[in-house]
């Protein structure tokens, strides 16, 4: 019986001594975090659906400016996903400087999204009188769910921008590997994906059809 002293990383294996899913620890860990985080968002979106069905839900948003503005925000966020794809691709091809540039571009679009979002929040509060605890459209839960869900998403974007900054610096100095860029990309795409649920459920469904 061989004692297998050469314990190298061979093909993905469930036999022990290797990674069965053929990905690094960090990447697997990030996938697990994404699963867990998506359950947190699911719980909030289900809670939103629950109170939406249980109440007479207002549809105060109009095509202009609400939907146009939130569409621009969506495009900004989607663009950041695209730049992230370029960053990961460049990192895997060993183009370090190029990858770092694309990461900063992603962080820029992420920040732009936050700025636009913040502007929208202030507009809703100051001009429309919509707050987490009250609004002029109807049930107070309209504002509550809006600010909670978009706020938690915004928190994820802000965290993501900080995370991208750390990865960009660490990767430029050679401390971190291309794999780290990819793991950061996973997180970033996840945050984008969450928005693709938030946008139709919170914005489009709250638009009056006239």
């Amino acid at each position, binding site marked *: *019986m061989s*004692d*297998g002293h050469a*314990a*190298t*990383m*061979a*093909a*993905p294996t*469930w*036999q*022990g*001594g*290797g*990674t*069965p*899913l*053929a*990905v*690094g*620890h*960090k990447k*697997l*860990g990030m996938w*697990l*975090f994404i*699963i*867990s*985080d*998506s*359950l*947190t*968002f*699911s*719980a*909030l979106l289900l*809670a939103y659906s*629950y*109170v939406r069905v*249980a*109440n007479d839900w207002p549809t105060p948003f109009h095509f202009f400016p609400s939907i146009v503005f939130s569409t621009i925000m969506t495009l900004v966020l989607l663009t950041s996903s695209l730049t992230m794809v370029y960053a990961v691709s460049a990192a895997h091809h060993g183009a370090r400087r190029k990858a770092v540039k694309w990461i900063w571009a992603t962080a820029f679009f992420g920040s732009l999204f936050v700025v636009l979002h913040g502007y929208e929040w202030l507009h809703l509060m100051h001009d429309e009188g919509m707050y*987490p*605890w*009250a609004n002029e459209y109807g*049930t*107070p*839960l309209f*504002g*509550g769910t809006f600010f*909670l869900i978009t706020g*938690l998403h915004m928190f994820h974007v802000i965290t993501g921008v900080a995370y991208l900054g750390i990865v960009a610096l660490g990767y430029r100095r050679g401390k971190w*590997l*291309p*794999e780290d860029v990819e793991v950061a990309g996973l997180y970033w795409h996840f945050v984008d994906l969450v928005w693709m649920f938030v946008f139709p459920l919170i914005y489009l469904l709250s638009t009056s059809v006239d």
Partner: protein
Amino acid sequence: MTEVQPSKEVAEYTEVHRHPEPKSFLWKYIFSVDHKVIGIQYMLLAVVAVFVGMALSLLVRLRLVCPECSYPLLGTFFPVGAPEGVMTPEFYLAMLTMHGTVMVFMVLTTAPQGGFGNYFLPIQIGAADMAFPRLNMLSFWTTFVSFLLLMAAFVVEGGAPMSGWTGYPPLSALPEATVQGIGQDLWLASIAVFCIASLLGALNFIVTTLDLRAKGLTMMRMPLTCWTWFVTAILGLLAFGVLLAAGVLLLMDRNVGTSFFVPAGLVVSDKVIDHSGGSPILWQHLFWFFGHPEVYIAILPGMGVTSHVLSTFARKTVFGYRAMVYAIAAIGGLGFVVWGHHMFVSGMSPYSAFVFSVLTMCIGVPSAIKTFNWIGTMWGGKIRFTSPMLYSIGFVSLFVSGGLSGIFLGQPTVDLYFHDTYFVVAHFHLIMGVAAIFGMFAGMTFWFPKMFGRMMNEPLSKIHFWITFVGVYAIFGPMHYLGMLPHPRRYAEITGVDYLAANGAAELQMFVTVAAVLTVLAQFIFLYNFVKSIFAGKECREENPWEATTLEWAIPSPPPHDNFAGKVPHVYRGAYDFSLKGAKRDFAMQCNDDKAVFGEPATQASGD
């Protein structure tokens, strides 16, 4: 991309981060990244928490049997809750709430998984550490912060929260509904922080189990303890995120003025409150979607330890190992679709209740498989009645007793009657509280020589076992009868109820309280034994004092900093090879190849 071989980068990446042994006290014992130190930290946290929890339960019991009694010191510590040492009903509810919260979160969730799992999962799978050692440290210290936040609720103005460990709104959502102030907010903050800590821990356990197994250790060769830690981690990963969301919603209701859980038109203290649109039932759904898996988070590691110990001391392989693994997975999976059985009295549609009831009954199948296999493992074995074996047999007994009442409570029609009575208290204490605690006793006495290089005192452990075993039945047995009267739960006192007086409820409550006091006192035997044995127990430098088979018994006691001293073990066989025909000894360790077990091939043939 179709390549199956990970790139060189990935290979470097998946190397365990070997960390040098720290020298200073701070980095060695406080902010350690060593899974063994972190495991012991979790255990010590749970020991502190469990004594806090027991003290609270005694206050609850004392208030029940003597509402007017004045207790010394109580008035000094809680001038508002217990003026001149006499507990107010609000104080009773606060103690009840904190007892449940401390026990469920800080004891039943931390010790079996964070404590024993942290210490023994990496060793049992042949790894040098967890996959993310730093994250591991972060998980512990986050849990510690959560514990401090919870304890702070005792000392703030208004005292500890009184909405139960389930934190049901609207009571928990409206600051104006109770006299309490920031206590409920601290409770919620504690739970939210605990969720984050548990998520990070769960993620770490899953990656460790999947990626760091030694060569030859297939999933189906893992000790059942590892299987239960693995499945528990999956449950934690999926459940705690939902509780986190629920906690954030409730915090907003309390502090931002939203109305997620508060319906319109509530009148509190003669005033109509300024909320509308929410639903308390929404909280119940979110809470129990977490809450039911939480029950299995508490009990599954105990099941793993029990299987492990029963097999070791019956000198027989686990009966139906594969069935055990599938049962663990089935219990975990079904645990996510039965949360509605906690809500049968919430006004749920009978059709929904029926579905939840049928699914709940389904859990009886894997549970029965496990019980049957435990008995099958012991059947005909050469049983060694050591203290871990006694605790494990106690676990099986308590699991069966608690499980039987679960069959009653899983029926909506029966549950409508029992739900708010002591019958439920008896049920969940036996099955998720005491059974899980017995799993911890078994684990502690079993692994103590490995962790500290000393033995616990066997006679003391056995005395502790018998007093505790009889004690918990004396506490929770009569509660079934109380519940059938029916004696409602959660009430600080009940007077002038004829059917309770006629059926001796007060006397039984007194009996339960006396039994509780004695059982709690008996826990000091264990504490004494535990603390004394760490420093002055019988020395046991033997690697394998129990003649067990798994990898932790192949390394020195206590294990060195890097577990296997850089030599990664190779695993040749399943976890429970006892009483092998033709073997030189009556067991084969997982790292023994056939030659080591049977000697030369000729001997092996003559053995048949």
